[in-house]
């Protein structure tokens, strides 16, 4: 239990998707102009992450890994399909995003309208595929670890986009040198926030 909590805190603050790995930067920069939309996108990303990472982990463990198919028949024990993982992962993500979209549209129209255009865009958000690939690379044990890691990464991403949106709303009245306005200052702000987040380094529970 304790190490799950540790993993959760670590994935939010230390291994933050944006500040440590720069994943999901495209939508982070494009959608962070107002707090309201970025909160919506943050929730959608967290949601999709929690859905896709465990599925991709299951697919990886029981189908793709070297020898993973041995549960089907002993003769398949030698098979290594891991070179297919990129293709399978992105297909699972695209399909899941489509499913989630249909599901949300049916059962919660207000949420669907709030997320609107962001839902389909999530399929090409690097953070989603990134988490699946990190799970594969770091060889997390058991579905609970994967779930906690996915949730933590999602919350970390949410935190990052919500706070940069708040800062951008605040500085929209500031007198910034013209060439630095918009994109430039957002990068520098993100850098400064990343420095602040580095102070969490080494935290353990």
């Amino acid at each position, binding site marked *: 239990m304790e190490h799950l909590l540790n993993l959760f805190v670590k994935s939010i603050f230390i291994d933050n998707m944006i500040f440590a790995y720069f994943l999901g930067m*495209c939508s982070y920069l494009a959608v962070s102009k107002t707090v309201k939309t970025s909160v919506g996108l943050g929730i959608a990303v967290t949601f999709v992450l929690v859905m896709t990472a465990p599925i991709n982990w299951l697919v990886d463990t029981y189908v793709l890994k070297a020898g993973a198919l041995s549960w089907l028949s002993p003769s398949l024990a030698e098979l290594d399909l891991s070179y297919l993982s990129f293709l399978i992962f992105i297909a699972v993500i*695209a399909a899941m995003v489509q499913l989630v979209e249909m599901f949300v549209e049916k059962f919660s129209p207000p949420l669907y309208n709030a997320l609107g255009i962001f839902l389909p865009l999530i399929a090409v958000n*690097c953070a989603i595929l990134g988490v699946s690939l990190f799970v594969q690379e770091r060889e997390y044990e058991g579905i609970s670890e994967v779930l906690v890691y996915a949730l933590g990464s999602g919350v970390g991403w949410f935190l990052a986009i919500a706070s940069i949106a708040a800062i951008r709303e605040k500085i929209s009245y500031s007198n910034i040198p013209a060439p630095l306005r918009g994109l430039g200052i957002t990068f520098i702000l993100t*850098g400064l926030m990343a420095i602040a987040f580095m102070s969490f380094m080494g935290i353990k529970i």
Partner: protein
Amino acid sequence: MSNNMKKEREALFSAKNIKLLKNPVNLDNPITVQVLGICSALAVTVQLKPAIVMALSVTIVTAFSNLIISLLRDTIPSRIRIIVQLVVVATLVIIVDQVLKAYVYDVSKKLSVFVGLIITNCILMGRLEAFAMGNKPWPSFLDGIGNGLGYGAILIAVGFIRELFGSGKLYGYDVIPKAAFEAGYVNNGMMILPPMALIIIGVIIWLQRSKNRELIDKS
């Protein structure tokens, strides 16, 4: 950019095609102007070598996916085009990944998940949607190479600065003389950490926009 489709044949390297190749390197740079593909751009720039390998891989994948999608553009039903594009890109990335693993294993290890993340690199989807779906194969191929080079230029610039000031090396070789260290020169450890990549990109954007004032944000 105006992409009027012309019926008559034009030379392989006509002025228009050269522009396709040159524009993305500066005035229409995918990273600093179009804001595409930043996701994987920064994490691989601690040293020059992975940055160069990454830049090459992205250029190859962009060019060939542009070419393939442009060849298929009339046969892809528009409702499922995203899936088709993702499959083409993912296949190319698998090839690149296997080649890297076979020939430059140490760099491939350093790039870790970021090779796989070329699939969701926004440059690819952006260029496929914006250019390859509506243009002939050859201009699309050039557009892919141009955007890959523009991406690579920024990557290499950031990698150069970070490796030089962060660890006093370039491409793995020591360049800062020993005497400098004895005289009290210290490597800037901050450069190796992720935040500096963001700040360097911010400064590059600042410089570029103060040179080309038409790029400045209106808001």
